[in-house]
């Protein structure tokens, strides 16, 4: 199996992630979304919050699921000054996709995962745009570029979070060994 697999190798047992790590990753994603993106960069900006949520929903679905995604969506609505529930609905759908597909995704390697993930992002973006169209009566097509860039970010992001989890695990282990 190549180095880039996200599924844990057989020898190690996946340890639970700490709540602090999940929370800080989500806050960091909100921070990245809040950077002053402008013009075409705003359209091309991957939705970091959606990416991180999807990662946790597929890798830890019994802890991080639809409820948390909805809450984060409400925060994103406030941060973006969009209507209450617009991001929340999109992220609810995203989390549902992640939770339902998590077994399938974990069997695939990252390249195959990317294709599956694109479907979920497309659904998320489409629901957001649909709501906007219903309320305001127009759609900006550039908005959908974001779903492509988000999909492209899936591989680097999964690898990064996975690497960070390994580092944390190693640190913990060293800590435990030193203590006795």
């Amino acid at each position, binding site marked *: 199996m190549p180095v880039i697999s996200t599924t844990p190798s057989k020898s190690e047992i996946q340890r639970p992630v700490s709540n602090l790590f999940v929370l800080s990753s989500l806050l960091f994603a909100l921070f990245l979304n809040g950077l002053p993106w402008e013009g075409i960069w705003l359209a091309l900006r991957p939705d970091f919050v959606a990416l991180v949520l999807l990662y946790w929903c597929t890798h830890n679905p019994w802890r991080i699921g639809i409820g948390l995604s909805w809450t984060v969506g409400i925060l994103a609505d*406030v941060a973006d000054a969009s209507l209450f529930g617009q991001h929340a609905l999109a992220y609810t759908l995203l989390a549902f996709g992640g939770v339902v597909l998590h077994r399938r995704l974990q069997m695939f390697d990252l390249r195959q995962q990317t294709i599956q993930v694109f479907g979920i992002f497309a659904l998320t973006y489409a629901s957001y745009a649909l709501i906007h169209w219903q309320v305001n009566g127009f759609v900006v097509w550039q908005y959908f570029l974001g779903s492509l860039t988000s999909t492209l970010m899936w591989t680097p992001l999964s690898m990064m979070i996975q690497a960070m989890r390994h580092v944390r695990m190693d640190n913990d282990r060293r800590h435990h060994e030193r203590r006795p």
Partner: protein
Amino acid sequence: MIDSTQSFRFFNRGPSPVVRLVFFAMLSLLLLFVDARYRYLESTRSALSVLLSPIQQLATYPGVLWHQAGNFFITQNAQHALMDENGELRLQHQNDAAQLSQFQALQLENQQIRKLYDLPQRNGFTTQLAEIVYTERDVFQRKVLVHKGASAKVEIGQVVMDDAGIVGQITRVYPGLSEVTLITEKDHAVPVQVLRNGLRTILFGSGDTSQLSLRYMPVGADIQNDDMLVTSGIDGIYPPGIPVAKVIKIERDAAYPFARVTCLPVGGVDKHRHLLILSAMDKLPERPAETAASNGDKRTKSKRKN
């Protein structure tokens, strides 16, 4: 999925994903409906925005640092460029000062004439400077947030301009921030007048580009390229006589009843970091109730004003 829902449940993990999906989706739709239709949730929104503001503040730092780094290099490298700019500004200032004294004389004259004819006096307005802290967060919206809020007595509906012209209007007020909807926001309307001949019309934003358009202009209307559009002051929200836009293109097609007029904003709608918030105008007397006879004409135009 069937597998996971119908197998034996040794551990209780709460309701199934489908149930949760339906619950949260309904909740979202309910919130959407309430927010879009009734706007009851503004206080919740401002409470949550206080919670989020540390992250938002933090997110502006890279931009500010970038700006400061740029400034640093300007002061190091291009001092004579700054001197040039200084000289230019001084020249500009002298020009403006001459025109200003003329303007003051005219203003006095205007006041006297208005008194003579028993017309209401034009009110002056005061301004307060505000800095843009966040730009639009969303491809669909053309809004910015500025660093003056309810604590600085900013109110919904106040007009925002820069040194050249109208930029937008305050549409939401938070404790320390307020949201400015730019005039290029889709369907945002400004009542304007053509400076050359006083023709009254309404200017609309187009949403995705930084252009504006005049709708419902008859094909025969007297309007030309490079015409300046200034606020008409009708409806008492925008003070009269402030430049808004310049006509850049007119398409007169006999197949359509209206001409398509495209304009560019005069103010730096997407440019500056500092904006002026104008004080609220005095309330006009209440519009008399519609009667069946006078129904029609301009009522539809003045519908979307805040």
